[in-house]
């Protein structure tokens, strides 16, 4: 089956070409079906490769060279595919969730003029994302990394007629650029240190390096900067909430389930280097934890349904980085895996709500949607419970594993983590109650228009809801009678790390402690949910209009800690002002004068020189003869 692996990224690319060139000529149904099928087939192929792969214990990574790319001197880079535990799991998520979102989009975008363009971009995104995770070297990763950034830009600014959306797209692109520079420098440094871009080569050589090697630390910090940009961590997270300008399926696919997790993928992929750099790991841990808490507090006061989910995404990504910083790579991937399902579910659910509300995104205008949207309501509730971390849904297991690692590291970290989880539970249930319970607060017209979404939209919701329930069972901890399947599955991937640390990376807590931890966090979450229910059910405490007076803290939260304003004042404004200064003085007074002066000089001199062109044929002949004479003489006598 592996020999068909190249088809997995190739098909979405073909789908992209089809949609972009022939999309306008064929009907919307054809465009949507082609685009979806060209993601479904890769999913089936991935499953077909995956099943034999899991049946072998500690299976070796499969590397398939496809084409030679660069071959200069000692540098050889191929387009080659690496199929191992990590890339296969990522491919499952990308193609699986990607397919569902394609199906969903067929319904969601049905009345949009840019229908074929939308599907073209989605397919292109899937292609680049697959390149990112399937490549066997850093340059392939970089192609994918930049490619998904481009698709993200195109899709955020999909409704390009709205200037704000374009600005959001630019913001995302520019902020990502900062991170990309870090990634690029990191890759260069890797090449300098290891003389290769291949993962396998680097892992092989890294085993012999001492822990705390300064070059490795620099490399990891640079790679982490790349991850910060792509995965929206502090301080480069502000683009992600703005990225909600894109159509909702885009938010679900790119800005929740797949692209933003590329940073997590990168770190897990190079886990051996990060293990060698404990200093970087500390940084990652604190950045992750800070992001998780910071974004969660902002989420508490947001009134835009997608903004809440966006901050929730930032917060959950923070969790993943927290886990990475703790060295719990499997836990981070586990959370990525479950998060992909329930966050995609929540986004698609919110899309369904927005669809029903004719584009309204403000929670204050919703309420009581439970009756009008039964399927959306049920699936959304499952997603909410899953993200809040109640057993036995997916979020519980993954979050619990991260928290257990945190506790093993330091109890204070555990408390912070639980705090984040509680806030998550609170704002998600606030969102849920505000949207689905109470009475309708929108206009009469909107109420009349309320309807359940078409089947193409509810079908992915149901599938994702099912996945949100069962995804957690891939890694049930021992204390609950599970077998740590994912931990075992990832053992070959983390072999280098295990070898270096000379111990198992997984946290070892006594069963009693684990029971206490689980129990207390679940109880706390339940309490918070109950509080949210009292507070927001039946239209109690509907958030005030923006114009109403607010306390300082509330204002701080609803204005997102003024981070955007802060960036404006310390980065954007100085740059804009400096550029204005440069323009007004340097540009106008010096550069313009030099450039114009050169032009005027040419005009003046040519005005004089053109009199040489007398138009007199006799003169021309004379000049020609003299020229020939000079050339001949020079040729003869100068040799």
């Amino acid at each position, binding site marked *: 089956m592996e020999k068909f692996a190249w088809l997995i990224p190739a098909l979405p690319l073909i789908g992209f070409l089809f949609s972009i060139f022939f999309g306008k000529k064929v009907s919307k149904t054809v465009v949507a079906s082609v685009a979806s099928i060209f993601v479904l087939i890769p999913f089936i192929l991935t499953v077909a490769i995956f099943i034999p792969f899991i049946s072998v214990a500690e299976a070796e990574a499969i590397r398939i060279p496809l084409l030679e790319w660069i071959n200069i001197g000692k540098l050889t880079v191929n387009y080659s595919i690496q199929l191992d535990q990590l890339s296969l799991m990522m491919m499952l998520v990308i193609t699986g969730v990607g397919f569902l979102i394609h199906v969903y989009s067929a319904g969601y975008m049905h009345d949009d003029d840019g229908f074929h363009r939308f599907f073209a971009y989605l397919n292109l995104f899937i292609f680049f994302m697959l390149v990112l995770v399937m490549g066997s070297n850093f340059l392939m990763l970089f192609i994918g990394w930049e490619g998904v950034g481009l698709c993200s830009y195109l899709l955020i600014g999909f409704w390009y007629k709205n200037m704000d959306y374009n600005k959001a797209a630019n913001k995302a692109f520019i902020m990502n650029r900062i991170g990309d520079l870090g990634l690029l420098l990191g890759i260069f440094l890797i090449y300098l240190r290891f003389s290769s871009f291949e993962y396998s080569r680097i892992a092989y050589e890294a085993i012999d390096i001492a822990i705390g090697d300064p070059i490795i630390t620099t490399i990891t910090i640079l790679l982490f900067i790349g991850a910060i940009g792509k995965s929206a961590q502090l301080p480069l997270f502000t683009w992600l909430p703005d990225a909600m300008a894109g159509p909702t399926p885009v938010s679900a696919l790119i800005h929740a389930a797949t692209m933003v997790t590329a940073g997590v993928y990168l770190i897990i992929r190079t886990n051996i280097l990060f293990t060698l750099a404990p200093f970087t790991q500390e940084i990652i841990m604190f950045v992750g934890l800070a992001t998780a808490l910071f974004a969660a507090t902002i989420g508490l006061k947001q009134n835009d349904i997608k903004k809440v989910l966006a901050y929730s995404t930032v917060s959950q990504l923070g969790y993943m980085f927290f886990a990475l910083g703790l060295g719990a790579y499997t836990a981070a991937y586990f959370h990525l895996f479950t998060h992909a399902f329930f966050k995609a579910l929540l986004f698609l659910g919110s899309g369904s709500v927005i669809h029903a509300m004719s584009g309204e995104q403000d929670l204050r205008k919703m309420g009581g949607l439970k009756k009008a949207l039964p399927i959306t309501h049920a699936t959304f509730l499952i997603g909410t419970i899953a993200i809040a971390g109640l057993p036995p849904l997916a979020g519980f297991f993954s979050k619990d594993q991260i928290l257990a690692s945190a506790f093993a590291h330091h109890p204070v970290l555990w408390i912070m983590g639980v705090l984040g989880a509680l806030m998550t539970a609170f704002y998600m249930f606030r969102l849920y109650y505000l949207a689905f319970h109470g009475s309708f607060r929108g206009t009469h017209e909107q109420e009349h228009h309320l309807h359940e979404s078409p089947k193409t939209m509810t079908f992915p919701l149901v599938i994702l809801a099912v996945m949100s329930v069962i995804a957690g069972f891939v890694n049930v901890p021992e204390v609950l009678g599970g077998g740590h399947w994912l931990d075992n599955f990832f053992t070959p991937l983390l072999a280098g790390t295990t070898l270096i640390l000379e111990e198992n990376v997984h946290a070892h807590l006594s069963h009693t402690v684990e029971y206490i931890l689980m129990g207390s966090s679940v109880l706390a979450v339940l309490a918070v949910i109950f509080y949210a229910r009292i507070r927001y059910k039946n239209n109690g405490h509907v958030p005030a209009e923006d114009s109403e007076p607010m306390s300082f803290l509330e204002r701080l939260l609803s204005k997102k800690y003024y981070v955007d304003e802060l960036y404006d004042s310390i980065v954007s404004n100085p740059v804009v002002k400096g550029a204005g200064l440069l323009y007004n003085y340097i540009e106008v007074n010096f550069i313009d004068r030099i450039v114009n002066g050169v032009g005027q000089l040419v005009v003046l001199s040519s005005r004089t020189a053109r009199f040489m062109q007398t138009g007199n044929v*006799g003169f021309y002949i*004379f000049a020609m*003869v*003299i020229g020939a*004479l000079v050339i*001949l*003489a020079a*040729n*003869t*006598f100068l040799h």
Partner: protein
Amino acid sequence: MLTIAFYILSALTISSALMVLFSKSPIYSVLWLVICFFSITGHYILLDAHFLAIVNLIVYAGAIMVLFLYVIMLMNLNKESEPQKPVWLKFASVITGCLLMIVLAGALKGYSELPPAAITEDFGTAKGVGKVLFTEFLMPFEVASILFITAMVGAVILAKKHVND
């Protein structure tokens, strides 16, 4: 004996060429040029280029020069009407020409003692040149005929008086 013939022919060639330049009337210029071409024909004979000698006589001294004469008569130019260049320009022209001659002579000096090659019986005759022309150079020869057709058509079109004028 041959050397003497060469010098006589050369003197004739150069002096008639100079006369082309310095004759006031274009008609005289043409006639001097014809003499010049005749002497060049003599050079061809000295060089065993018999076929060329005949062709030169017929084509150059015959056809082309007659064409020149016709045109001059057509324009009615046999009066000394040509405006003269200023003296300093004439001076400059002569100096330039002499300089060119010096440079050319200097550039070509290196070939001095090339011995004359042994030649076959039919070298330079219509038979010998024809053999080369119709074997090695058949293609350019045929192309030359197309060139002639083109030139003929072009000349007719150019020289024709336009009916609309």
